[in-house]
């Protein structure tokens, strides 16, 4: 076939591309018009787009386009808007006289429960568990036993200033390492283990308990009380109930006496707004243990 000479297929009357495979020729039908028009529109749009929007990457940046569009900046602005809107709604929570009043107001209660649930999931669940059930060393928030008190005010203060946190008003208590620091000999610690076990109704060696009574009065009663029921103002746990933060078996009690204990809860004032802390306090109070 000569150059520049059209090869017309005799059956369809359509020009072929001139390519032949095993005697089969390819028809050179024109592209559908709607397809071509769409394609030209796409080209036109892409040129307009390149002028208006960020398009070409460079070595030290990219072409910004006339509209100076930035999706990252849009997201940041949208998030700020959202946050501002939320805070506006949550501000209502600061208008009540005491946090306890929120539970009596259906609208404020539903609001703080919704906000509290999401804040709890983001900030608290890592240590206290998604349902507030806690783990060994991390207090259970849904039972009725509290180290520092379960009233609205007490929960709010713990949230604001934390425990052993980097905050001037933080809550501090101290369980000494009686064994490790050599404050009590080994035999007396063994007797104390029996004594503490007996406090919560466990079976214990009566002789050891009798021997430990004066040791308890001298070393432990100042924080845990003469009857072992704890003093919330000092964050000293009740030793007579069924709840144990670090476990209630003899080996756990021995470890506590030997090495001491001291968990840390961060102060949240710097990270959460006042409204958010109120919402969280109401949520934690409602988990079941609120006093």
């Amino acid at each position: 076939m000569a150059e520049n000479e059209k090869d017309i297929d005799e059956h369809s009357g359509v020009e072929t591309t001139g390519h032949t495979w095993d005697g089969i020729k390819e028809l050179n039908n024109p592209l559908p018009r709607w397809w071509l028009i769409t394609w030209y529109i796409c080209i036109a749009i892409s040129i307009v787009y390149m002028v208006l929007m960020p398009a070409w990457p460079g070595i030290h940046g990219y072409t910004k386009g006339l509209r100076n569009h930035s999706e990252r900046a849009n997201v940041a602005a949208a998030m700020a808007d959202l946050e501002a809107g939320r805070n506006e709604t949550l501000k209502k929570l600061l208008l009540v006289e005491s946090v306890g009043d929120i539970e009596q107001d259906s609208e404020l209660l539903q609001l703080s429960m919704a906000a509290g649930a999401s804040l709890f999931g983001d900030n608290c669940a890592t240590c206290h568990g998604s349902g507030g059930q806690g783990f060994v060393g991390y207090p259970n928030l849904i039972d009725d036993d509290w180290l520092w008190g379960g009233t609205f005010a007490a929960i709010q203060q713990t949230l604001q200033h934390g425990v052993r946190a980097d905050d001037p008003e933080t809550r501090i208590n101290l369980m000494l390492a009686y064994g490790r620091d050599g404050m009590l000999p080994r035999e007396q610690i063994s007797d104390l283990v029996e004594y503490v076990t007996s406090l919560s109704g466990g079976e214990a060696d009566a002789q050891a308990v009798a021997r430990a009574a004066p040791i308890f009065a001298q070393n432990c009663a100042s924080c845990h009380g003469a009857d072992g029921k704890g003093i919330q103002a000092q964050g000293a746990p009740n030793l007579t109930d069924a709840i144990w933060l670090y476990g209630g078996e003899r080996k756990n009690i021995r470890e506590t006496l030997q090495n001491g204990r001291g968990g840390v809860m961060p102060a949240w004032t710097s990270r959460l707004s006042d409204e958010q802390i109120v919402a969280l306090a109401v949520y934690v109070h409602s988990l079941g243990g609120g006093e």
Partner: protein
Amino acid sequence: MSQTHTLIEDGIPAVAREAAVGVERVDVEAVNSAPKRELYKAREPIYPKLVHGKFRMLKWVVLFATLGVYYALPWLRWARGPGEPDQAVLVDFPGQRFYFFFIEIWPDELYYVTGLLILGALALFLATALFGRVWCGYTCPQTVWTDLYIAVERLVEGDRNKRMRLAAAPWSANKISKKLTKHSLWILIAMATGGAWVFYFHDAPTILPQLLLGRAPMSAYLFMGILTLTTYIFAGFMREQVCTFMCPWPRIQAALTDEETLQVTYREDRGEPRGAHKKGDSWDGRGDCISCRACVAACPMGIDIRDGAQLECINCALCIDACDDIMKKIDRPTGLIAYDTDKNRTLRAAGKKETFNLVRPRTILYAFVLGLVAVMITYGLSQRATIELNVLRDRTPPFVQLSNGAIRNAYTVKILNKSNETRTLVLTVDAPEGAQISAIGETVEGGKIQLNPESDAIHSIRLFVTLSQTSITKSSIPVTISILDPQSGEEAVNPTVFLSEGK
């Protein structure tokens, strides 16, 4: 067929412009007829000629009725009480409600919409089994808007011949002004179509000024834009191609019609042999069809009904009006093209009497299922609960031990008040003997809590059930939570359990 007929049908001499006395033969080709069908072919424009008659009138009535309903419905008000929207038909996405006059549906009741779609499908089946593609011919939005667009086109550019001349004419001020007027009117109609759609999703009197002032939400403009564009393109340019190439209905209908379905039919037994009729000629020994092609000129689908049933035919019946008009002129009985059944054609061919049989196993089945679904939906709506109760038992942890050794379970109880008034309801917790029941922010007396849930909303409360170790008999104890409206006696019950480690 005699030679005369062949001559007239195949190659008409320039002098034979008359199909009969006083009836000019229309110079028209059925551009979409089956014999001319090709795989790769540019669309040939169709210029449907205006006809007059009972079916054209019926189509005008249906057009105004359907468009009237579409444009007016969102403006209809329906009082529902304070705080509730007063729009009769409203799909409220932000509020998660669907309102239809006295019916209000929550998202968990979307099956009613499914029921409505099933109802629509069955009604379509029944109508098709009885009367063929009446949906396509009269009520389909594509047909209605195309009809409206053609009416506008006719108003601006004139009827068939004028439109064809204008299309062929070189560009002039007159042509530009006519095209400009036509397209402006089309775009206005398209925008009104898209705009009216938006009214179904917002309060119409509120959104209209917002739409005009550019203050409506982006989604409103997006949907208005999409519908404006599709209306303009589908009704203005694509027209019959939408029915033939995009719509599945022409393919489905073959399975829904039978030989007793009334369809727009050319009665070839009466019409053939066709041919021009000269003055003074006898009608004996020939058919009534005078090959005037009025039926082809009237067809918006570009087909020749005389080729028989074909998938392009939307059964709009305009060819019936066109043909009847001619039959009256030549003093022959009307109904050469008419609603007819395949069975009757066979009966007539055999010299038997015609029968019309609307009640057939197929139509009985469709009507029965249609009625059944309608009754189910009506019953469901009449028995629709206005209170619902959902109990979500805390799972992490399933239970918690208290300082005195007692076990407590926590439940989030959600009460759905689907009525339009704040009501006084009583929540009852049926727990084993000795259980302590408490709820955040509520007073519990004898296992009962009095609640005042807001109208048309979900009220959520947190409930605690505590059992002492001595009251626990097994690891899973049934607890029943129920809610009662003492006024109406309506009740919702939700069984749940109290979990513990057991004895």
